């Protein structure tokens, strides 16, 4: 039975760890399907974590913290749009600028407001999201398999975990079953076709970026007001980049991007699990090596398997109408 509960806890942590990746990948799909590269998922996630933590701390309600994070992230997306859509700047440069800005800004603001560089005060139970126990989780735990599935895997997550997995079919539906989605995909493939169909290319890209800002805020709030009870320096720890890789690995498609996110989440859960474990004949694996697994996997997957990931045709190109 111990083996079963090991598996259950591994799946449980996979779901939790993948959550910010899923949000970020979905956010990335909106931006990139519209033809705008979004490297700044990382920075926006970090900013959202900071704003959500500070917001909840002052306002006493984590939902208000989340709302603030959404507003700030949408503003950052608009900034990216202003630089790269309106002013046709280089999209990667704009993202890098945002990422660097935010690492410095969060550290400096925390120092100014709370006297500690890059650290916000610990949130109490009122100020953060708590794990949700699904009804009857305790009473059905002893039923074999189903009990484990329900009580140990499905129950006991933060609200964001449920929202993240719920977001995937919603994103799929928006992108492939609505006219907004059709225009979104078209503007990333051939903006001239969209323009000649009488749709404003710039407005379309701004809309996509706004949605991107809303979604990415959830990833940040999950980090600082759910799994942790405060913000700390660079707490996004490359998850934005990892999510971007997952999205590319998933060929800009919500379903496959989800699978890639879960794969990354799983290797991360596994590495946590493997730390300190003695393996027969080899002995203890150095922790640094284990921690590197998800990143090595990213490189291997991107280099080896994706091969011809077909990006939206017009990605990275500012739309220039007149010569």
């Amino acid at each position, binding site marked *: 039975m111990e083996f079963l509960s090991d598996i259950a806890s591994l799946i449980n942590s996979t779901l939790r760890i993948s959550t910010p990746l899923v949000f970020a990948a979905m956010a990335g799909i909106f931006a990139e399907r519209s033809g705008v590269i979004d490297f700044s998922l990382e920075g926006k996630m970090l900013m959202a974590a900071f704003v959500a933590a500070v917001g909840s701390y002052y306002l006493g309600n984590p939902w208000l913290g989340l709302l603030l994070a959404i507003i700030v992230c949408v503003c950052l997306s608009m900034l990216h749009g202003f630089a790269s859509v309106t002013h046709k700047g280089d999209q990667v440069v704009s993202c890098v600028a945002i990422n660097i800005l935010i690492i410095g800004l969060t550290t400096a603001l925390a120092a100014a407001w709370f006297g500690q560089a890059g650290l916000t005060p610990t949130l109490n139970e009122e100020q953060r999201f708590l794990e949700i126990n699904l009804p009857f989780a305790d009473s059905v735990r002893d039923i074999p398999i189903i009990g484990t599935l329900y009580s140990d895997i499905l129950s006991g997550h933060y609200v964001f975990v449920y929202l993240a997995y719920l977001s995937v079919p919603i994103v799929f539906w928006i992108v492939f*079953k*609505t*006219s*907004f989605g*059709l*225009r979104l*995909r*078209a503007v990333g*493939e*051939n903006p*001239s*076709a*969209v*323009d*000649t*169909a*009488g*749709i*404003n290319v710039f407005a379309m890209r701004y809309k996509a970026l706004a949605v991107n800002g809303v979604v990415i805020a959830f990833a940040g709030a999950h980090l600082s007001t759910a799994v942790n009870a405060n913000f700390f320096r660079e707490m996004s720890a490359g998850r934005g980049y990892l999510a971007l890789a997952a999205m590319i690995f998933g060929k800009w498609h919500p379903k496959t991007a989800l699978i890639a996110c879960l794969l990354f989440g799983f290797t991360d859960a596994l590495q946590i699990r493997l730390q300190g474990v003695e393996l027969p004949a080899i002995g203890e694996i150095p922790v640094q090596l284990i921690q590197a697994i998800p990143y090595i996997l990213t490189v291997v997957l991107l280099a080896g398997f994706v091969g011809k990931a077909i990006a939206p*045709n017009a990605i990275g190109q500012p739309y220039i*109408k*007149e*010569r």
Partner: protein
Amino acid sequence: MVSPILELTNINKSFGHVQANKNINLKINKGTIHGIIGENGAGKSTLMSIVFGLYQANSGSIKINGKEINLRSPRDSIVNGIGMVHQHFMLVENFTVLENIILGFEGETVFGEKLATAKKDLEKLCKTYNFNIDLDATIADLSVGFRQRVEILKSLYRGAEILILDEPTGVLTPQEVDELFKILRSLKDEGKTIVLITHKLIEIMDLTSEVSVMRQGEMVGHTKTKDTNKEQLAEMMVGRSVLLRVDKKEIKKGEVIFKVNNLSVKDDLDVARVKNINLEIRSGEILGIAGVTGNGQTELLEALSGIRKVESGNIQLFGEKISDQDNFLNPRMLKEKGLAHVPEDRQRMGLISDFKAHENLIFGYHDQEPFSKSAVLNSQEIKEYSSKIMQEYDVRPNSPNLITSNFSGGNQQKIILSRELNENPKVLLVGQPTRGVDIGAIEFIHQRLIDMRDRGAAILLASVELDEILSLSDRIIVMFDGKIVGEKENKNVTDRELGLLMAGVA
């Protein structure tokens, strides 16, 4: 008396310092096919983009059915019954036909009922005009001719009464052109108004009832098609009289100097593009390669000019093997052996557009005397040479210091020609020499190629312009799907015959 459905008054439009349209006045009558003819860069496309709402005029007014309208975006034009088929199709390649057509006019937020109605309406339209289009096909899988029909269908579905077509025949085979013209005539019979933008005189004479001529951003004349002829129109377009036929002496064939044996070539995606091709060219002969774009001509030229690897087979110059799958000479070595190449894509391969004209004029010879001495460029010598050669090749303006991209297409092409022809090559490979080149320059370029031939050079000419192939070549081969599907001496060959071969049916 028919009333004009579209009336333009004093339209002006500039891009930076370039005035693309100057005081344009134009009246188009309902139910006619109206041609607008002019050289490349005369401002035809700009004018129609203004009518389509894509560009906004700096001044002037547009009236539809006598009512003045303000066109701020293509949506305004579409709503007012204007449709446009652009030269480069405005289609999303990985969408289906249906998705492309409803884009922007979905009529509902979530796809459902309206989508089904749209599909039914479109099927009906297809039947009315005999379009034979599968609405669920992906654009990428359709031939160019079908994509164009999708564009026409798109405009009709959106309720176009005036249909503007911008250079619609450039990418079609003669048979596809026939089909298109049939469609356009039946649209006219339905009462639609067609505006045909073209630089091909024959299309104007074939199809239109009225014609307007543009030159250098200005409207220089309107006339009924039946009251004019090709020569007169050409003169209006260019501003002087033009020779429409090339003067060519009887061929003086020499020995075979360039030979290709069983050549196969793959493209960057590892797809076989040239399949087991054999050809030979004699001294004093122009061999024309006809074919629809994308049937292996590009890869063939690249392999012959030493910039693409040979998969199998070999290439011989003066009986000496210069390339096979193991070895090949690079373009520089080929140049030393007397082979010159005028690439198809002059922007990408023929020129460095951001360089000054004099730099492009000597590129490839820049490290040779007199242009450089012990690795230092001799700018005095280069400028003098440039000025002289630009004079000789009639490059306008004659300013060696001007950035190359500021020259017109025709003059850019003359820069390349002057560089490649100046060393008197024995073999000349030429791809699309007059693509995007105005009539005046075409005449000049053709004459130069004929001169080269008369001096005993072996010339391989690849072009998608059948007229060009027919007027220059001594012998013609047709490529389809990487293979040579036909070879003919250029005597009494018609474009129809070639067209069938190009389409892969004969």
